[in-house]
């Protein structure tokens, strides 16, 4: 119960900050991040931007080590995305090797993924200032989290919290319900999108750390082919590519 209130207060605080920085939540000059994007590279692992080892807590390292050891034996019971096509959550969904579309609207930025038809809603500005809005879901833990954003010049700064405990950041890195994910999403150039992640999760990491994902504007266009992960799984395909165990941190 307390965690739920804390999250709601945090969301309200973020909303107030957003209101102060931008009256209508719109960027001063909207950068054209709309379109269809495809990830550069195919790795399923997050790599620290500073080149240093991931700063695990004792608990975080134990979970990570256990996940890797299980995967090395072909046991993915720790990962319900791989066993039953459950949502990968954030930021793992951004690693999927399939295109996604971005729609920018005044109150919301929406990402529509080809992967299992998932979508992500990011509230912009003060859209969440009223607790009467939405389908009343903010008291819940979420795989994708509760995302609130503001435009700072040409960058969309997204704060995401209210994560469910027990998820995964990538193929092996654990998620706790203390995870706070901050993303700086911007165009590096017209055809390159950058998502700079800052991961703060005191249960699993001793300090915040960063990773960067980049995406290329895709020649794919809407509509995406209908992807039904369960059908792929039932036909023997992997829901997501299996990570290279040797490449893991």
């Amino acid at each position: 119960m307390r965690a739920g209130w804390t999250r709601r207060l945090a969301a309200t605080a973020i909303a107030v900050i957003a209101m102060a920085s931008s009256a209508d939540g719109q960027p001063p000059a909207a950068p054209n991040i709309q379109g269809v994007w495809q990830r550069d590279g195919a790795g399923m692992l997050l790599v620290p931007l500073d080149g240093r080892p991931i700063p695990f807590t004792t608990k975080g390292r134990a979970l990570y080590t256990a996940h890797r050891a299980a995967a090395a034996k072909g046991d993915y019971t720790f990962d319900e995305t791989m066993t039953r096509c459950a949502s990968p959550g954030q930021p793992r969904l951004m690693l999927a090797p399939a295109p996604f579309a971005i729609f920018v609207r005044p109150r919301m930025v929406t990402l529509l993924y080809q992967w299992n038809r998932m979508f992500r809603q990011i509230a912009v500005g003060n859209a969440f200032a009223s607790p009467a809005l939405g389908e009343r879901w903010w008291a819940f833990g979420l795989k994708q989290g509760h995302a609130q954003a503001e435009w700072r010049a040409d960058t969309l700064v997204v704060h995401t919290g209210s994560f469910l405990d027990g998820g995964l950041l990538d193929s092996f890195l654990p998620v706790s319900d203390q995870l706070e994910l901050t993303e700086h999403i911007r165009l590096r150039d017209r055809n390159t999108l950058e998502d700079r992640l800052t991961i703060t999760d005191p249960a699993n990491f001793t300090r915040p750390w960063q990773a960067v994902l980049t995406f290329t504007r895709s020649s794919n266009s809407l509509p995406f082919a209908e992807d039904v992960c369960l059908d792929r799984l039932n036909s023997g395909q992997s829901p997501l590519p299996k990570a290279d165990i040797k490449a893991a941190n």
Partner: protein
Amino acid sequence: MRLDVNRHAAKARRMRVRLALIGTCLAHLSGALSLAVVAATPQSGSPQAGLPGGVDSEKQMQALMQRLLLEKAPPPVESLPLPPADRRNLEGTWIGNQVSALRHRQDKDGRPLALTAEAQRILDRRVKATYVDHVPYANAAAYCRPPGAAWQLGLLYPFQVYQSGKAIIFIFSEYHTAWTIRLEQAHRDAGARDYMGDPVGHWDGETLVIDTARHKQPLWLDPDGSPGSADAHLTFRIRRTGAGGDGLEIVTTVDDPRMYASPWSFVRTYSWRPDMEFFNEYDCESQVGGPDALERFGLRPEPAAQ
């Protein structure tokens, strides 16, 4: 005291949403409604269904749907965006504003439907499973597969529309489903079929006309299970209504000679609801999936057509 009241309200709301999250993935709406009502607001006189499918009559079902509709009433005071002025712009968040028919017995003009013998046999079996046996059959939704636009548009959950030059996309709160319409293009005549069919659209004045064909599997057209074959052609005529354009009307025409002697149409209406634009996360595969899903929710596989 105020805090206690708020806490109590928040707790009740959480319970309701939890139930909705679970219930709406059931194959049959009766399950969702009976779960939600029985568990969230137990009262004397309300249906006390012991099983998810435990609704004894269509009248009872209708009352439950009416109740669910009331729960979706808009908030009293909000400063929210108005719908776009351009009637060819459907973008925004919409939700059904009427009690949908549990079973279509007549078309929009009051003419009785002429079901083929095959369709009648399928429907009778589904109705018996739900209202007599109280163990409804599972449809695509219970297997976390996209259930088709007709089913999806009948749920009392919001959907969003996005428009780009070549496509119009409906994103549904439930089943993380996207229904993407290719504009001004012909149907694909070969290749793999999709659960949501192959929808192509064009504008007829201020009405968006969508023709959907080539579904991957047979359809349920309503909660009682009025059948549609995989080869059914469904045409959706969508237009904004009302002085401010804050209503949406969808006239669906079913052209399916295998199931119906002649094409027939039904109408659904929706309201502009920007207050519902942030959807519940619906992780069907996790929340209701798994090998024991049907048993957990009191459903059973539908026997193959005979």
